[in-house]
Structure formats: structure tokens, C-alpha cells
């Protein structure tokens, strides 16, 4: 797909002895440098097999695997694996080694000096959120599942490999801890820029973790390979559509930001103005709800025509209902939707960094944004097809 593919699989085949159909059939795949590629697909489709082919935990029956353009299909597998971090669901910490020694496994094999190893271990423990003084000398059986998986990640990062392979790393962890580990890992990746292949069977995890997603079908065939937003906006076939499941459009809102919207002019007045002026403005603009601003121009309440009518001759102080939370440019449209459905007016106010009213987001905006994303994705695929 592009020139800087860190890992390139070239028509890779894996046939397990004794089985008629290959577990991986002629898979060609580029994994771009510094990104997280998620392999996702139904159970048994060959995700783990594909992953384990990359560090030669299993030998391919055919095809080539290139790292940085170099064919590693014939390389020494032990040396290859020391260059590649590997994290599995069951973690597999060495129970007879301390946490520090577990993390030091590869640095020791590479004969780093003692001081460098100690510093590296402490740095990694810090990085995964386990205070070194407290955890260094513990044994794996003294850790919770979430802590063990953190150490598993730290151990894989031991010698600072530029490639990480992760097979359902957070699969066996309770949902709350999993979410935390996912967030921590994404934050880490922002600094590390490792090339990561991440296996999961959970589409939501794939959407969250992936810079790109490869949706795999039987025999590890690629059904769709793209960014999460494009997959959500334009699932190429029924298989992908079914796999993504309900609510894919709404999930797609996570990838659109308020800043991408063109906010329309919306009636707003300071609360020092009279209710009558508010009512006039609403009638003039043909709207039902007025945004009432405070002295600083920050939105505070929604006032309906009816409420303004009942307010009589005074100003608009205390008239209407609370606007609730505001949106800013960097918020996602998913968050906008969340606020919108809670709001009395069915709309949400957008403010700038100073809190000043900028405009509103309503259903029409979301609808338009989604349709734009979908048609862009469709055009992208049509272009691909035309060029093919």
C-alpha cells in the first residue's frame, strides 16, 4: 500500500499438518511503520496464526515475510524474536523470577550492563504505572491480572523493540480494567510510535485501538482493510456489516469532531435584555428556543417562546432551563449526540476556549456529517476500484 511498510507479508500461506484447508491462505498485507494495525475477525479465522507467523513462532508453509524490506523467512528465529515484542493473553510471566527479572529477560540475553538494565526496568515499571520500589522485587503470583498484564507489556518492551505483536492482550481482564489498560496503552503509543499488530475478536476494541483495521474472514482472508472511520462509514459487504454489528454509524461519530461542522447562525441574547426582545428575535428567525447568555456571553439557559411569553415585561434573568454541558471544537460528534439527547432543546451549544457562545449543534448537523463521511468513503472505494 505504501513505501514505508514496516512489515510486509507477501502471499503468506500456513497449512497446519493434518488439516485440509490452510489456516492462512495467500495473505498479502502491509503494516505501516509507527501505527497500530488491528487484526479482527470471528473466532478461528486465523488471527493468532497470522500474528505468530510474523515472529516465526510458526513457520509459514509458503510466501515471504519482510521486516524493513529484509526477508526474514530464513533468518534465525531466536534472534528475530528478540527484536519483536510479544504479548499474549495468558501473559506467561516467569513465576520463578521477580518482576524486575522478568522485564530484564531480553536485555540480559543481549548482555546489557547491569546499571542500564536496572534503569530500563525502573523506567518501564513507571511507564506501565507500577511504582518500581513497590513492584520490582515481587513475584508474579503476587500480582492481580491487570498488573500481570502491565508487566507483560513492560517485558515485551524490555529491549525497546520497534515492533510489537499483541494477541488479545486485554482479553482476559474485566471491562473496567481493560478500558484503563487500553487508554494507558494508547497514551504510551503516542510517545513510542511502535509498529504494532494487535489481535482481538472484539470490534469495539479494534475501533478503539486501531490506526487501521484488517477485518479477516475464514482462512485469514482480508475482507476489509482500512481506517476505523472508513470501515464504519462504509462497510464493503454484508460480512463486514454483520461483523461490525448494530450502531456502526453512531460509533462512527467518535471519529468526527465538532470543529469539522459549519455552525449555523442561531438566535442568542444576553439575559439583561427584555423577554419581549427575546420573543421578537425568535419569531423573526422562526425558531422555538433562544440561547440565553450571561454577562460574559456564555450560554446559560434555553428559553422557549412559551417561557418568554410567560416572563412578562422584565429581563430574561432566571428564564428557561439550564443548557447543561457545552461542546468545544475538539469534542467528538458522539459526545455532541450524547449532550443533545439530554438537552431540553434537542440541541447543544458550542463555545470557544473562553466559554463564549459560538453556535449550536443539532441533529441536522450530525446527519449531514455522517452522510458526508459515508459518501467520501464510498467515493474512496469507487476510486480504488476504478484504479484497480
Amino acid at each position, binding site marked *: 500500500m505504501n513505501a514505508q511498510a514496516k512489515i510486509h507479508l507477501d502471499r503468506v500461506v500456513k497449512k497446519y499438518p493434518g488439516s485440509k484447508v490452510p489456516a492462512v491462505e495467500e495473505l498479502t498485507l502491509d503494516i505501516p511503520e509507527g501505527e497500530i494495525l488491528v487484526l479482527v475477525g470471528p473466532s478461528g479465522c486465523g488471527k493468532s496464526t497470522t500474528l505468530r507467523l510474523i*515472529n516465526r*513462532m510458526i513457520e509459514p508453509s509458503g510466501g515471504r515475510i519482510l521486516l524493513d524490506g529484509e526477508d526474514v523467512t530464513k533468518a534465525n*528465529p*531466536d*534472534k*528475530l*524474536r*528478540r527484536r519483536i515484542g*510479544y504479548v*499474549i493473553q*495468558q*501473559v*506467561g*510471566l*516467569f*513465576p*520463578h*523470577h*521477580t518482576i524486575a527479572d522478568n522485564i530484564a*529477560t*531480553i536485555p540480559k*540475553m543481549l548482555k546489557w550492563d547491569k546499571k542500564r538494565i536496572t534503569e530500563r526496568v525502573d523506567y518501564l515499571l513507571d511507564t506501565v504505572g507500577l511504582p518500581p520500589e513497590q513492584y520490582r522485587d515481587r*513475584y*508474579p*503470583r503476587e500480582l492481580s491480572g491487570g498488573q500481570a498484564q502491565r508487566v*507483560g507489556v513492560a*517485558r*515485551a518492551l*524490555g529491549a525497546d523493540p520497534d515492533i510489537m505483536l499483541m494477541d488479545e492482550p486485554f482479553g482476559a481482564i474485566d471491562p473496567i480494567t481493560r478500558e484503563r489498560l487500553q487508554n494507558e496503552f494508547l497514551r504510551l503509543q503516542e510517545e513510542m510510535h511502535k509498529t504494532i499488530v494487535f489481535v482481538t475478536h472484539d470490534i469495539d476494541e479494534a475501533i478503539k485501538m486501531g490506526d487501521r483495521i484488517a477485518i479477516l474472514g475464514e482462512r485469514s482472508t482480508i475482507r476489509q482493510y482500512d481506517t476505523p472511520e472508513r470501515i464504519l462509514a462504509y462497510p464493503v459487504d454484508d460480512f463486514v456489516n454483520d461483523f461490525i454489528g448494530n450502531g456502526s454509524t453512531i460509533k462512527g461519530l467518535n471519529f468526527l469532531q465538532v470543529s469539522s461542522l459549519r455552525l449555523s447562525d442561531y438566535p442568542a441574547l444576553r439575559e439583561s435584555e427584555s423577554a419581549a426582545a427575546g420573543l421578537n428575535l425568535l419569531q423573526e428567525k422562526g425558531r422555538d428556543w433562544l440561547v440565553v447568555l450571561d454577562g460574559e456571553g456564555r450560554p446559560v439557559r434555553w428559553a422557549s417562546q412559551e417561557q418568554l411569553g410567560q416572563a412578562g415585561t422584565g429581563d430574561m434573568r432566571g428564564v428557561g432551563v439550564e443548557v447543561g454541558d457545552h461542546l468545544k471544537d475538539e469534542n467528538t460528534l458522539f459526545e455532541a449526540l450524547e449532550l443533545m439527547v439530554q438537552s431540553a432543546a434537542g440541541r447543544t451549544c458550542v463555545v470557544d476556549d473562553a466559554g463564549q457562545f459560538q453556535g449550536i449543534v443539532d441533529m441536522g448537523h450530525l446527519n449531514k456529517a455522517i452522510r458526508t463521511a459515508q459518501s467520501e468513503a464510498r467515493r474512496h472505494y469507487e476510486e480504488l476500484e476504478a484504479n484497480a
Partner: protein
Amino acid sequence: MEALSSWFTYVSANIDYIWESTLAHARISLIAVALATVFSITLGVIVQRRPLARTIVLTAAGILLTIPSLALFALFIPVFGIGNTPAIAALYLYAILPILRNTVTGLDSVSPAVVESARGMGLSTWQQLVKVRLPLAWPVIMTGIRVATLLTVGITAIAVLVGGDGLGTYVQSALTRNGLPNATEQLYVGVVFTVALGLVLDLVLAVVQRFTTAKGLRL
């Protein structure tokens, strides 16, 4: 009461000889167990992941145990002549099964995830064995060694019949001199010191086991 005091009298009068026999007994047993340990761990490592070889080897070691001990000792006389050597050879064969079986079981009990991650980090097959699989299997292997030691200490008493040393000399003497003075005392010297030796060696090995088991595995 009187029997007991006469036994103590006998023991204190002959303590030098008894001590010497006990040491000889221990030496014969420990040599056999040491040889069996090296052999069985090696063989266990080789066959553990090979189902056919593993069944054959474990069955063969089991059959060895069912050969009557006296016969097994005698079988080695044509090869090694009379003395401690045929005894050690026979005891060695007996000691194989417990150690071999525990080596295989111990290696089986190592979590596949641990081996997978060891391999995934680039440990060579040999490093996986000596740094991960054997240390994790060690407590179970060590238990096999202790069982083999107890078993061997008991059977070593038969060595005397093929011309070997050890506490068996007291038992044999008691049997041939049945009814004569001190025969009963000698019998009990054989029994008591053999049992005591077994217990002491087991205790020593228990301490060795504790200190050779990685801290993270200790309960």
C-alpha cells in the same frame, strides 16, 4: 524393658561397626540415586514431548520395579562380580522410575503460556529448558528424587547377599544366627538404622529442595 536395654548395650558396644555400615549403606544408596538422577532427568527431558517414546520408557521403567529385587541383584553378578558394584547397578535401575516419572510430570506441569512467552522472547530451546522448564519442574523432580532415595535405602539392605556392604549385614547375620545370642539385637540394628538413615537423608533432601527451589515458587 530388658530387651531394650540389652539392645542399647549391644549398640553402644558395637557403635563403630554400626556407624561404618551405616555410612557404607548411605554411600551405596546415594551413588545409585545420583546416577539415576542424571540418567532419568536427561531421559525425561528427551521423551516428555514424544508420546510414543514416553510411553515406552515409562513402561520399561515400571517393569524394572516389578523384577524381584533379589533376582535383579543376582542378575548383575555375572557382569560386575561380587561386591557393591552389582548392588549399585540394581539399585540404580530401581531408582529410575520415580525420578523419570516426576521429571515428565514436572515438565508437563509447566504452563504452556510460560513456555510460549519464553520462546516468543527469543530464548533458544536450550535456554527454555535450563532457564524456564527445568527450574519450574524442579520441585516435582526433587520429590521424585526423595521417593527414589527412600526406596533405595530400604532395598540396599539386600546388597549384602551379592557381597555388598551396608546395614544388610546385620539383618543377614540375625537370620543366619536365629536364636543365638544377640540375633534379635542385630535384627533391630538393621531395621532401626536403615529407617533412621532413610529419614535423615529425606530430611537433608527436603532442605536441599527448599534451597534449590526458586523463591517465587515456594509456598
